[in-house]
């Protein structure tokens, strides 16, 4: 994962002794057969001072090192300090001769393509960063760069490599036991002022380590008194743990997770606390350990108690060390990179849940005393992550933690495995490409995508998040469309016809919402026109036109009312038909009335004729 956000700072440093960036950006990378973030440097670096797999000992003269290496590189570090930039990859294999075998122009190589210190061998890292997983070393400080410079100079001037063939853990232990200066200089005996430089820059206490000003003064020829090594508290009697004897809490902290069960027994028997209080009564370690044990007891007493306990004890016993949990070693500001790696490589994620949920990260942070660490910033981030994990909805969870604590992280959705999605805009462009290859998904949003947009630019998705999380298909589609339309409009992206076309295939659920068939046909016609022009904002506007929706709804309600009345009339007539089982009876009666009237008329006329005939003589 490249340090994309640091490129601008790097480029602002104008110095001939650093590799010059020609261009950077996302492009198709044929060897990996996918998109990647590519940083191109000017190809004038030359050969590395010492190859990565060569013996790390050059036996150069002090004057050459001072003139050809230290003067230009100290100036470069001064520039970095002014620009608040940390290189993180200072080592002989990343220093180049600039094409001249006499080291006339030493150039410091790449530091942007990986997380800070990712490729640094333990030998060139401070003890604490050396203990840490390479991906989780965090941003680092100028003091770490100066240490790396000191370790690189040690490799240049020494005649043999004292740590050759040693494992990383062995190198760290050697540094812890004898100090970095002794560990890296070995049996070489230096004379002259270079000794002061090495002692000053390889000091294991960052507060006591030389800074730029001191190196510059030394380069000017001033003799500086080497600072004393801080007293390391040693126990009067050792603690036997896992078959070994420990006199220092930092050594025990490093090995504590090798046998959590035995450590738990030592704690429960009281042996561990007795050893601490008797041996280290003058420093803060016993108090920190008591607090760590209290914190551990507050949590669950079931599965995972031992792992949690050794993690908290380790942080209390060695405050400068990384978080040590279930085999992982992470600095607080390196958790983001480690989490990104875990997501990218589909690794186990439970560790990260525990780190945030069980207060492991917070406990580590509480013990920190380094002034260079942004404790309040990290505390706020860890607190947010804890709250994100409390909710399982889209836009929360561990995915949101990743994008929240790691601003460099690309979108880790499986859909974008072949793309480098670093912003909501590049997300749309990746989708446009996917859709153009007929690989449009059935649903544009997943947990990663929602969390990614929320973390990168919340206003692009937050107003529509309720719709996106809805169970109703038409609301989900509308929420996604509105979010993408907002990104397209706010970022002034061009036409996105393939995304629009993919959306068009999903619009069935939205068309169903309209009742008037004529209106539906009219809307379809308009949508088809904007689909071709790839204008998501216009499409969203049409579907979201409240006037049209209200009119359609009103007309539908009116039609429903009419239908209800007609239905009532129909049922009334039908019931009347059923009730008047002899529907012809009415007609029969009418016929009877007519017939009887005719008969009565004839009778009356007949009678009238008879009576009138009798009396008138007809």
């Amino acid at each position, binding site marked *: 994962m490249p340090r994309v956000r640091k490129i601008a700072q790097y480029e602002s440093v104008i110095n001939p002794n650093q590799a010059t960036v020609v261009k950077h950006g996302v492009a198709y990378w044929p060897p990996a057969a996918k998109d990647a973030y590519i940083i191109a440097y000017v190809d004038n670096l030359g050969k590395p001072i010492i190859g990565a797999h060569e013996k790390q000992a050059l036996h150069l003269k002090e004057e050459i090192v001072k003139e050809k290496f230290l003067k230009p590189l100290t100036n470069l570090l001064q520039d970095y300090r002014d620009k608040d930039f940390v290189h993180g990859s200072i080592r002989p294999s990343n220093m180049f001769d600039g094409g001249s075998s006499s080291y006339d122009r030493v150039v410091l190589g790449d530091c942007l393509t990986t997380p800070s210190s990712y490729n640094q061998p333990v030998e060139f890292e401070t003890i604490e960063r050396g203990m840490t997983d390479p991906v989780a070393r965090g941003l680092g400080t100028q003091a770490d760069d100066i240490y790396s410079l000191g370790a690189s100079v040690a490799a240049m001037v020494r005649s043999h490599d004292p740590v050759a063939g040693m494992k990383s853990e062995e190198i760290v232990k050697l540094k812890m036991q004898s100090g970095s200066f002794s560990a890296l200089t070995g049996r070489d005996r230096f004379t002259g002022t270079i000794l002061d430089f090495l002692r000053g820059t390889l000091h294991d206490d960052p507060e006591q380590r030389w800074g730029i000003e001191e190196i510059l003064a030394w380069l000017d020829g001033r003799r500086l008194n080497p600072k004393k090594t801080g007293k390391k508290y040693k126990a009067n009697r050792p603690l036997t743990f896992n078959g070994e004897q420990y006199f220092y809490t930092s050594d025990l902290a490093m090995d504590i997770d090798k046998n959590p069960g035995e450590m738990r027994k030592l704690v429960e028997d009281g042996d561990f606390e007795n050893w601490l209080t008797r041996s280290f009564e003058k420093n803060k370690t016993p108090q920190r350990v008591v607090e760590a044990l209290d914190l551990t007891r507050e949590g669950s007493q079931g599965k995972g108690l031992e792992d949690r306990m050794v993690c908290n004890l380790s942080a209390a016993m060695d405050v400068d060390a990384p978080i040590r949990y279930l085999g992982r070693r992470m600095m607080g500001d390196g958790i983001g990179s480690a989490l990104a790696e875990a997501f990218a490589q589909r690794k186990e994620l439970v560790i990260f849940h525990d780190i945030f949920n069980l207060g492991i990260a917070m406990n580590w942070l509480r013990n920190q005393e380094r002034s260079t660490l942004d404790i309040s910033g990290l505390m706020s981030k860890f607190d947010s992550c804890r709250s994100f994990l409390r909710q399982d909805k889209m836009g929360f969870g561990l995915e949101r933690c990743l994008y929240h604590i790691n601003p460099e992280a690309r979108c880790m959705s499986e859909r974008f495995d072949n793309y480098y999605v670093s912003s909501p805009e590049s997300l749309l462009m990746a989708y446009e490409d996917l859709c153009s290859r007929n690989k449009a998904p059935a649903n544009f949003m997943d947990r990663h995508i929602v969390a990614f947009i929320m973390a990168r630019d919340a206003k692009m998705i937050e107003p529509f998040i309720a719709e996106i999380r809805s169970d109703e298909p038409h609301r989900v589609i509308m929420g996604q469309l509105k979010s993408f339309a907002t990104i397209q409009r706010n970022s002034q992206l061009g036409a996105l016809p393939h995304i629009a076309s993919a959306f068009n295939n999903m619009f069935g659920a939205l068309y169903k919402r309209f009742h008037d068939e004529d209106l539906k046909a009219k809307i379809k016609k308009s949508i088809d026109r904007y689909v071709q022009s790839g204008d998501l904002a216009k499409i969203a506007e049409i579907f979201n036109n409240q006037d049209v929706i209200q009119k359609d709804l009103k007309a539908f309600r009116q039609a429903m009312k009419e239908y209800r009345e007609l239905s009532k009339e129909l049922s009334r007539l039908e019931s009347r038909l059923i009730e008047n089982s*002899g*529907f*012809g*009876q*009415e*007609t*029969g*009666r*009418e*016929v*009877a*009335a007519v*017939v*009887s*009237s005719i*008969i*009565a*008329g004839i*009778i*009356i006329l007949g*009678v*009238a004729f008879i*009576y009138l005939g*009798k*009396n008138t003589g007809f």
Partner: protein
Amino acid sequence: MAKKRNRKQRTWQGQLFLVLGIITGVIFLPSSFLLMVGMVPTPVAVFVDRSRKKTKALTVGSMNLAGCSPFLFDLWIRGHDFDTSMSIALDPKAIIVMYAAAGVGYLLDWAMTGVVSA
């Protein structure tokens, strides 16, 4: 309101018919008396007939009037006085004929209804 207006209209019509009926009845009192006695089955039929058009009452009423007509003509020929009207009305044979004619009306209504609705 609609109910009130309908009642008002009926009252007006009823009043008109009542006045005309009373005047006619007084002028032709013997005939009126004879018809009052002889046409008794008709108002009964009106009361009994629940249909909207009152067709059964019309059937029965028509035949009832036909049954009354010979005695009505007889009254008119014999001088149209109240005594003659009384004697006819008290004649059982006349009553039977008039009421039997109404019965024929009932018979006709039943027969025609059965025939048509079958």
